[in-house]
């Protein structure tokens, strides 16, 4: 069980991004985190994965505990090795200049053993298209293929807990659906999943519980069903609210972002 307690994070010592966040993740669940752009979702994941100092951020308060053991301040590689926690960063975290096979190899670096080859075959089984393209440079694969590769790479690290940061970014709805069904499959094999998503509907559909973040705070939490029914969530994230928009500014803040894709 992962528990985040009253976490506060600043960048460059001045930009306060997380203002006291508490989140608990139970083993075996799919936890959904939704929130506007800039709410601090990515920052939260970075903090958990031990990569926040790489971005010149600091945890100034609060704690992160894995089964009651604090993992605050540990190195990313140590967290991965000791707690089986793998963070798939946003924006296609694959190595463009390596082939797909090399990508999977690179991801296995921390656990290099005899079984890497068979694990690779398993990934190809899960995503057949990767197997077909394995000698192609990942940078030339399509967005969907890259995202699948990213999940494949995460699997190569043998995770017990997966942190996925907007995996559906820039994918066509049909691919997103496929992706989410694979995520649910993975969950069934016992991997705990924290899923940060803009695509709230699809995410809440497969999730068990969810949190809504806004400017560094949790504003709403509950199980996935409840959130799907919630008025505010419906209005701002699902685009089907009955109420009039409160103001133009609010609407703009919650508008789906346009990515560079």
């Amino acid at each position, binding site marked *: 069980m992962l528990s985040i307690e009253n976490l506060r994070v600043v960048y460059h010592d001045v930009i306060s991004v997380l203002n006291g966040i508490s989140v608990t993740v139970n083993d075996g669940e799919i936890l959904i985190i939704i929130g506007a752009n800039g709410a601090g979702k990515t920052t939260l994941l970075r903090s958990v994965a031990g990569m926040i100092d790489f971005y010149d951020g600091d945890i100034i308060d609060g704690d992160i505990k894995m089964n009651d053991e604090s993992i605050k301040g540990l190195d*990313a*590689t140590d967290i991965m090795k000791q707690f089986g926690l*793998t963070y*798939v960063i946003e924006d296609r975290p694959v190595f463009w200049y390596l082939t797909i096979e090399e990508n999977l190899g690179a991801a296995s*670096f921390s656990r290099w053993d005899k079984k890497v080859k068979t694990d690779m075959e398993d990934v190809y089984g899960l995503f057949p298209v990767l197997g077909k393209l394995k000698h192609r440079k990942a940078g030339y694969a399509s967005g969907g293929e890259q995202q699948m590769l990213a999940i494949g790479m995460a699997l190569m690290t043998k995770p017990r807990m997966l942190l996925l940061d907007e995996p559906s970014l820039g994918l066509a709805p049909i691919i997103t659906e496929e992706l989410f069904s694979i995520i649910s499959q993975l969950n069934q094999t016992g991997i705990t999943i924290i899923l940060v998503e803009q695509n709230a509907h699809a995410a809440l559909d497969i999730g068990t519980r969810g949190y809504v973040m806004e400017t560094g705070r949790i504003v709403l939490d509950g199980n996935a069903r409840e959130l799907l029914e919630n008025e505010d969530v419906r209005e701002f994230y699902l685009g089907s609210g009955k109420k009039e928009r409160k103001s133009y500014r609010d609407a703009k803040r919650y508008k789906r972002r346009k990515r560079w894709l």
Partner: protein
Amino acid sequence: MVDFIQALGSGILVGLVYALLGLSIVIIYRASEAFNFAIGEFLVIGSFLFYIFFFDLGLPLLIALPLGLVAAGLVGALVERLTIKPLLGRSPLSMTIITLGLGFFLRACVQLIFGSHSYSFFLELPDITQEYGDLLFLSDPIWAGMLSLCTFGLIIFLLFRTRWGLAIRATSENQAKAMAFGIDARFILLIVWAISAACIAIAGIMISNFGALSSMSAIVGLRAIPVVLIGGMDSIGGALIGGIIVGVCESLAGAYIEPLGLIGFKDVAPYLLLLIVLLIRPYGLFGEVRIERV
């Protein structure tokens, strides 16, 4: 014709050493986007470390060379730990500037420890001088070329055929991604600096063997600048070709242009060529093709 082949041949042999210098710049540039301007000082320090093992302690070459290279690597690693690591994630420009300052500092250290006079340097490798009529290739440059080429090959093997090489290439592409997938990017950077320092040391040892070793030998390190700029800052193959081009260019300028009265042209020629190359291809001859997806 004989003259041409002579100039070409000796140019290629020296060029291979330059290529090794270029390679050590390139791997650091790929990993941390910084240009290591302290290369001259690395060269001198690496050569002196080998000097201690081989000449002072009198160990056989086959033991002294690996020991010297490991020592040079350790110095490279130490330098990375103390000066580059604290800047990780910051602008590569600040790292580049740090290496400039580092160069001055290391030079002062070397002069303090070893003084500023020359040390004799005779490797006593088997004589493989090649002489055909008027053509003459001396033993030392042939050894230097061969050893540099072997080292070059070894580095390529390391990078493209081993797991560590894979991790180095991954980290070179993107440190954050590498970290996220469990590659200790900081440690990999350390290793890259160590490898680079060892390569520079090999080049330094070879060049010292032509003459002697002193803190002045640092000048040779500057040859790496046209090499990588011509070849492309991020291209390993480019370093090889760039090195050979610079070597040949120097040697042809020395054989054909300097006798016309343009003294000192040898040193300038690679830069002139560089200017032309940069006009045609701003990223160098072999700058890597960027994968663009928009």
